């Protein structure tokens, strides 16, 4: 179990589809998260991420305009976002997409249709990843 308190975490959900944003928000609320913001496209996401940091960012892989995948790649090149967990959300379930996402720096990968049980399990693992990253960061810093 993660040491991270869910109610203290800031989460951003980025998806062009209103229903997906709401489904993820409902799942997060059920898990105890309190601060959940949403963005309908990459530009809106960038504005929010750069205005105030988030602990977890859920990103739709395919969106009109800049894709969530491209957005994640940009942030992964900036050390400032090393402890931010980027979770790719997509209907693409082929193994090569999962490998590609992880290679590009995704912390986790959730496939649609979103199952609440699998979603919660993956988010718990993401919280453990954040714990480890924060610990590593504080030790090296």
């Amino acid at each position, binding site marked *: 179990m993660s040491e991270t308190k869910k109610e203290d975490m800031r989460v951003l959900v980025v998806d062009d*589809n209103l229903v997906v944003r709401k489904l993820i928000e*409902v799942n997060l609320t059920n898990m105890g998260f309190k601060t959940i913001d949403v963005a309908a496209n990459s530009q809106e996401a960038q504005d929010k991420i750069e205005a105030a940091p988030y602990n977890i960012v859920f990103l739709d892989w395919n969106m009109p305009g800049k894709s969530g995948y491209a957005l994640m790649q940009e942030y992964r090149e900036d050390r400032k976002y090393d402890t931010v967990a980027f979770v790719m959300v997509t209907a693409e379930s082929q193994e090569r997409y999962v490998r590609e996402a992880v290679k590009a720096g995704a912390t986790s990968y959730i496939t649609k249709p979103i199952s609440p049980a699998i979603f919660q399990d993956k988010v718990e693992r993401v919280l453990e990843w954040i714990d480890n990253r924060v610990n590593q960061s504080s030790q090296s810093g």
Partner: protein
Amino acid sequence: MAMKDIDKVRGEVATLVSQTVRETFQTMFGQNVQRHEAGWTGGEFSENAVYASIRLHQGDESVEFCFRFDFNLLLQAAELIFSKEYLDATPVHEELASEIANIVCSKVKAFLNEQGFETEMGFPFIPRPDENPLLSSGEMIHMHFYYPGPGGENDIGVSVNLFVDGKPVVRS
């Protein structure tokens, strides 16, 4: 492989569409939607249908999936995640229809590409009211799914049609 060769794997595509439609409604909304195989004797499709389409393209060829959803089926799903007040103020049915179409077509795209096609998928769109994709000629797949409707009887909840598009490919 040319897009028209999808006809050679239409049985597998139909099975995959059927599995994914059922799985999507069950997993996301806990709704039991079943494929109608033959001899339909249930209720009628609601006049209040919601459409969503997606094109798969390969080079200049394309095929189009058209989904038609019963308004009440989508309303049941929406009520599980949105408050009544929100739904009264914000129409979400087309967003819901688009997302289900997106999930189903992503699985089909993955299957086709494993078979040697090199398809790409466009974003979901809502067909214009004057278009009637479900009646288009050259259809490859046409199927219905039913669900327990608001009156307690089985109603047709989803229709899916796959046909050779023939329209110029518009890349997004």
